[in-house]
């Protein structure tokens, strides 16, 4: 039987345990899977980190959780840097998390993927929302650093393509603290002043951390809500930022953005010249077309006219031969004759119409004779 020499209160014992744990472990790196994640209104995050065999309670205080750029979720594999200690009220040993990293991939990569997925679901990348880029913008707003190669290259390309362009540069930090606030301010400025017709948001290539400002949700939402169309030109060909997806047009590099935003002036000259030439040519073609139509008409007209004449002539001949058939002259040919009273010209059909001494005209097939009546044949 042990001697009851020194009796400890629970709180004293707990304090001792806490001291031993804190001093013998201090800060540790622990890996495991998140479960039972919850965030009460206090803003602190509570979860359990577990593996196949064991689990341990974890706390992430609000001020530290703000530094975590990705979203904690149940099932996520994490690497924690945490202090082992005891929550004295419950006698519960737990990890007070100081740093947190997703296992397997970088935290930036995970945050990027999570935000991308969330914004896709929300419709921020929808093609239907994208605004057209004006064809020949009067003034181009450029948001980038005022120093370095990016702005210099862009101005150079713009100058080569179109020697009289207008650019309004809004200089911003493109990485590090303050970068996202700068970018948001610049986009809001151009929208408020409405003094540019298109915005190019540009930055040279870099690591995902370097480009992070362009993967911030705040920046993505401001780009989405911009009334001025935005061309995103961040990083190199292969770098895709959240801004690239939300913007109205994505250019693979800042230099390409400068080419996309403005047409080549020489091409425009050529186009106008082509059109002018075409207008000239079509009108030149028009005149002979009309001449040909006139020629066509004239020959058709004369053809029709001669046709009508031919028809009429044929008709005439038919009528004439019909008339011939009816003519009494044909009867005369057969030896008959026609007699009329010479004075009156009346045809003589009745012998009693004449008396002796009257003169009559007898028409024969060939010529006619005039005779004086002696009497009717009954009297002779």
């Amino acid at each position, binding site marked *: 039987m042990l001697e009851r020499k020194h009796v400890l209160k629970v709180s004293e014992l707990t304090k001792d345990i806490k001291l031993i744990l804190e001093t013998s472990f201090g800060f540790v790196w622990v890996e495991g899977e998140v479960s039972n994640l919850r965030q009460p209104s206090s803003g602190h995050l509570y979860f359990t980190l577990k593996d196949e065999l064991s689990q341990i309670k974890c706390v992430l205080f609000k001020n530290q959780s703000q530094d975590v750029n990705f979203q904690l979720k149940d099932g996520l594999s994490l690497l924690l840097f945490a202090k082992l200690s005891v929550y004295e009220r419950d006698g519960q040993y737990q990890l007070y998390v100081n740093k947190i990293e997703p296992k397997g991939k970088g935290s930036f990569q995970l945050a990027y993927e999570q935000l991308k997925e969330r914004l896709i679901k929300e419709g921020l990348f929808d093609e239907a929302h994208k605004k057209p880029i*004006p*064809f*020949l913008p*009067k*003034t181009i707003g450029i948001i980038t*650093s*005022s*120093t*370095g190669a*990016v*702005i*210099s290259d862009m*101005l150079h390309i713009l*100058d080569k393509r179109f*020697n*009289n*362009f*207008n*650019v*309004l*540069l*809004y*200089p911003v*930090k*493109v*990485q590090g603290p303050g970068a996202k606030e700068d970018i948001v301010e*610049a986009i809001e*400025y151009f929208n408020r*002043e409405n003094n540019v017709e298109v915005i190019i948001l540009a*930055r*040279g290539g*870099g690591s995902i951390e*370097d480009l992070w400002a362009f993967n911030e949700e705040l920046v993505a939402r401001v780009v989405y809500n911009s009334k001025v169309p935005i061309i995103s030109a961040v990083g190199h060909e292969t770098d895709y930022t959240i801004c690239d997806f939300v913007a109205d047009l994505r250019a693979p590099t800042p230099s390409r953005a400068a080419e996309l935003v403005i047409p080549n*002036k020489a091409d*425009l*000259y050529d*186009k*106008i010249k082509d*059109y*002018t030439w*075409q*207008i*000239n040519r*079509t*009108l030149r073609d*028009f005149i002979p*077309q*009309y001449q040909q139509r006139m020629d066509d008409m004239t020959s058709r007209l004369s053809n029709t006219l001669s046709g009508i004449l031919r028809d009429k002539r044929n008709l005439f001949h038919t009528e004439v031969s019909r008339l011939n058939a009816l003519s009494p002259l044909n009867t005369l040919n057969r030896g008959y004759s026609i007699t009329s009273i010479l004075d009156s010209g009346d045809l003589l059909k009745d012998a009693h119409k004449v008396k002796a001494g009257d003169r009559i005209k007898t028409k024969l097939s060939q010529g006619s004779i005039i005779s004086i009546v002696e009497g009717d044949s009954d009297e002779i």
Partner: protein
Amino acid sequence: MKFEDALKKLETIVNELESGDISLDKAIERYQEGMLVSKKCLELLDKAEKKVEICLKAKDGSVKIKSFKEKDHNKDKNNI
């Protein structure tokens, strides 16, 4: 008139003339119009002046627009 609209108009005139489905009077009218628009297009292309400016933020938060000269800004190369 905006350049883009002028260019579109020119295109429409060309198409209309090329279709051939147009009276001679109308064709001549469109031709004259086309020549005017073509001239206008060239004018518009050359009209704009080159201007490169920069927004500078004053201490009170207001933004002033100044002419931008690259060499003035290339002194400190610490930005990207």
